[in-house]
């Protein structure tokens, strides 16, 4: 029995967790640092649009502002309302933070080595990657509903219901947009989705060096816009920040939360936003692929391209926040169910028909 343990279970039970822990830390630590600067960038861009300075006191140009905020949240006293359901009240922010971190397990951030073998820098290169993304992101809504309910106050509860309704509505159109991309790829693996954007429209147009045209944003153009707007709604970003409309509702379902619990919610929110930027990059902007087939651009590591694209998408998120007025709730629901759902359903049929009748299906 002991021999057996040493020979078969021992290596498996030690090495797999150790390896996966190192890989997870390698993606999560840079990710969390990046999220700190994404928050900083969000505030700076918003300030620049409104001709303000934004955070500029802590550290040079205010670069350490997010870390100062984190320290402040951690040292404050967590207040748990006496009428609340304590276990669920504490569980809700944990679910949000856990789920938004766990989804990064399948995100390929850079080209593998050798580059053409369908490998990439990713913790878990599973063949149902996009389903994993959908499954884990469908859990995000629990942090919100549970948080709102466990607070035992009507305002967080009503706000949680609004927020949950919003997230579920836009998950539908996000699902259909992803289906159109999957139809063009023929695989559920995120690495394959990026690899499928290596060739395509640019070759037909006779400009094979202009690989930016290969990415799915152009062939599936309306879907790119639909996905971008749905991503805004899905992450409760302005102009769809109804659950926590700052000027009207204080903080929505997070009203009763304070200190580190509130920080976990905020962290989860920004992680979800960063993830949406990453998934837009992977689905529509070619992941880690360079925009042009030129030697010095090919020489730049894939991770750099990936990060650049994520930041560009986030810049769009931040600009939308700065200059688009907030939607009304009925307008939000109308947009999701009466505009995006029929449009994306139609596009699924259209893309499938084109791929079938022109014999282009992968």
């Amino acid at each position: 029995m002991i021999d057996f343990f040493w020979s078969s279970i021992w290596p498996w039970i030690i090495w797999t967790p150790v390896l996966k822990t190192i890989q997870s830390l390698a993606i999560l630590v840079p990710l969390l640092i990046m999220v700190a600067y994404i928050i900083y960038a969000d505030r700076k861009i918003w300030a620049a649009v409104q001709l303000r300075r934004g955070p500029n006191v802590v550290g040079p140009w205010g670069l350490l502002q997010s870390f100062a905020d984190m320290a402040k949240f951690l040292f404050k006293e967590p207040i748990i309302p006496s009428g609340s359901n304590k276990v669920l009240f504490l569980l809700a922010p944990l679910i949000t933070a856990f789920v938004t971190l766990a989804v990064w397990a399948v995100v390929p951030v850079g080209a593998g080595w050798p580059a053409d073998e369908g490998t990439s820098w990713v913790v878990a290169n599973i063949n149902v990657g996009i389903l994993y993304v959908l499954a884990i992101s469908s859990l995000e809504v629990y942090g919100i509903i549970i948080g709102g309910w466990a607070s035992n106050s009507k305002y967080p509860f009503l706000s949680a219901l609004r927020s949950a309704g919003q997230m579920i509505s836009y998950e539908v159109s996000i699902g259909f947009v992803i289906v159109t991309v999957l139809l063009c790829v023929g695989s559920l693996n995120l690495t394959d989705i990026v690899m499928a954007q290596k060739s395509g429209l640019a070759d037909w147009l006779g400009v094979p060096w202009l690989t930016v045209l290969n990415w799915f944003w152009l062939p599936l153009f309306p879907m790119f816009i639909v996905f971008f707007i749905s991503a805004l709604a899905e992450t409760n970003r302005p102009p769809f920040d109804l659950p926590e409309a700052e000027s009207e509702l204080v903080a929505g379902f997070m009203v009763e939360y304070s200190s580190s619990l509130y920080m976990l919610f905020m962290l989860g929110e920004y992680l979800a936003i960063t993830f949406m930027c990453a998934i837009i990059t992977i689905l529509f902007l070619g992941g880690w692929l360079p925009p042009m087939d030129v030697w010095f651009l090919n020489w730049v590591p894939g991770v750099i391209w990936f990060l650049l694209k994520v930041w560009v998408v986030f810049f769009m998120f931040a600009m939308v926040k700065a200059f688009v007025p907030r939607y009304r709730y009925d307008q939000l629901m109308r947009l999701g169910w009466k505009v995006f759902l029929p449009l994306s359903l139609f596009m699924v049929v259209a893309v499938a028909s084109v791929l079938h009748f022109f014999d282009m299906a992968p």
Partner: protein
Amino acid sequence: MEGTDLFFYLFSALVILSGLMVVSARNPVHAVMFLIFAFINAAGIFLLLGAEFLAMTLVIVYVGAVAVLFLFVVMMLDIDFAEMRAGYMKYFPIGALIGFAVLAELIALFGAWKTKSGLNVVKAPMDPELAALTNTEALGRVLFTEYVFYFEAVGIILLTAMIGAIILTHRKNDRARRQNIADQVARTPEMSIEIRKVETGKGI
């Protein structure tokens, strides 16, 4: 025993435990939470079986959609524990009877379960070989070729159920004031704002 066996026992123990908690939890919201936990662990068992597509769909459909609706409904309830326990002894015999009946049926079913000998010989060879395909592809090939009519029939039944539910619950209310989006979009500043030059100190 292999390493995956450890996880099988972990997941199945957690499924059974959380299943027990679903029926014994006093607070319905807690019961739904344990139900979600049971779903997630069941997805883990599917993963161990190599059925990754089913595992992910289980989480997407049951945890992401069905259990959210459960939570919505249950959270709206005004929970009164005293009232809930009032009829306990009255309903206990019927509940116990149904429980035992189902248990007896299950025992009878699995006790009499026999696989026909030589079934493997009858089984047609898979084309293409299942091992060469991913799970999703294999399911898709079967679902959209051999079983496509059943698949579509299921879709139509679900659609009918959805339409039926909407028709049954939707009450047309003539007094309700609705938003007309086309009117709102077509509105221009000229229609709502009139700019007048007002002399200082006079008013309109």
